[in-house]
């Protein structure tokens, strides 16, 4: 079928894309380059960094009050949570009767204290109880989402900006929470903003 898509064996793909060149290149990458490629940075030269966007620190809670200059009054989590004992019976948003009621929560069967550190609400906790700072939140995500993390490490998840070639420039990568709301991590639905405006191309007239 010309129009259907057929799966290819991975081995074929590798063979089809210069299997022979792989070896020679891997040598070229560990040894000084031959003279005709002097315009390239040598492989032994330091690679540029891959930086991952990070939150500055623990989030601040919006109180709804305004400062004299009109800015929002925000407070740290610990402002309240040092005086209130943790309630292990609160498992979902519905159980919260005083604060955080508006939070949309849809993240499997985890409860608040699976991730929030009851001993220090300005940090997070791993499954083994150890403490994680907010800027290192990805460590927390990765403990459940191993395959995603692995793909992320290899550039197959999360996207990037900057240089594909680190010998020429740096790269920036998104943090998990840039795209996924930790409380409702499903990637949001969106409206396409850009459509082809081809002449004579209409919506299909019949349902497929």
């Amino acid at each position, binding site marked *: 079928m010309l*129009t259907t898509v057929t799966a290819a064996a991975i081995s074929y793909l590798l063979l089809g894309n210069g299997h022979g060149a792989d070896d020679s290149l891997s040598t070229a990458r560990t040894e000084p380059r031959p003279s005709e490629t002097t315009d390239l940075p040598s492989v032994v030269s330091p690679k540029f960094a891959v930086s991952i966007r990070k939150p500055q620190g623990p989030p601040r809670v919006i109180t709804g009050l305004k400062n004299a200059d009109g800015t929002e009054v925000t407070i740290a989590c610990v402002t309240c949570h040092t005086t209130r004992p943790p309630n292990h019976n609160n498992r979902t948003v519905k159980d919260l009767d005083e604060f955080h009621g508006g939070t949309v929560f849809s993240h499997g069967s985890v409860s608040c204290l699976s991730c929030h550190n009851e001993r220090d609400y300005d940090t997070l906790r791993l499954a083994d109880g150890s403490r994680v700072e907010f800027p290192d939140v990805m460590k927390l995500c990765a403990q459940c989402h191993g395959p995603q993390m692995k793909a992320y490490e290899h550039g197959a998840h999360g996207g990037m900006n900057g240089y594909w070639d680190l010998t020429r420039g740096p790269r920036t990568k998104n943090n998990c929470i840039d795209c996924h709301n930790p409380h409702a991590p499903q990637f949001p639905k969106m409206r396409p903003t850009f459509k082809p405006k081809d002449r004579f191309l209409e919506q299909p007239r019949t349902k497929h």
Partner: protein
Amino acid sequence: MIADDNSSPERQADTDKDWFLPVVDQPSTRRTALKTAGAALGLAAFGKAISPLWSIPENVSVDEFLQQHYKELSDNDKQKVFQRLEAEAKDAYGAEVTISDPKPIPGVRFGYAINLSKCNGNGACMEACNRENNHHRGVDQSYIRVLEMSKGSMDMEHGTTTYDHTVPQDDKFYMPVQCQQCENPPCVSACPIEATWQEDDGIVVVDYNWCIGCRYCEAACPYHARRFNWEQPEIPTDEVNPDQGYLSNRIRPQGVMEKCHFCLHRTREGRAPACLEACSTGARVFGDLNAPDSDINWVLKNKRVFVLKEELGTQPNFFYFFDS
């Protein structure tokens, strides 16, 4: 009868004289005069009919007309051509642009992969392509088309590009298609004048100043990857991307073919393609197929990858995969 219009020298003289003194009772010479008048009238009408062609010398300079194929230009020639094109961009679009000509990075072979489990069809890649590559704004041209396909089917006949609703729909997946940069590109074989060819890094490029616009390559491409400039592209001055490559995103002339070039003016300097940076779902993976530890090779080794229309033997350097 047959010799009526045979021009013996005497006859010729007669004919000339008739221009001034038509003699009615000399049918053969009168006929010649009438014919001459008819021919003159015809030529004048022809000149009038094709008068719109006089716009060609206005738009096409002698240098442009005589410009040689890209591969035959010396570095010196190229500098002159680039300067001319920069001046033309200034003239026609009011934009200060720089035209560069980055060469393939030795030893690099580009590959691109898209994760169809991630792509949600929001079209940001198309928009980025449009902006980056100085596409015609009037038709929102782009090198990418995103197909909305039914889950459980790879039949493009059940796909559509004109969907206009919130994405992703639960029963759909989204498949962007752009130039697959084939190892065995049918478009390159089709071109009668070598105006399109494959470079050492696998990118198939077009010399927009050599293409004659026969569109045979467009018929030959199985992926709808090629575009024709049906009219001169319109781009507002402040939207012109000034960072331009001769073989990539410089403003194309009317009447020539163009296609995705993996943003070679960016990627040959190590940067990511514009569509990858724009992708908000992180579905796109780009890199060097010849570097064993590149991201693209990790995908090829660890994901179940497929190519479009494999049975055609085009051997794309563009791959698709799903998360399992």
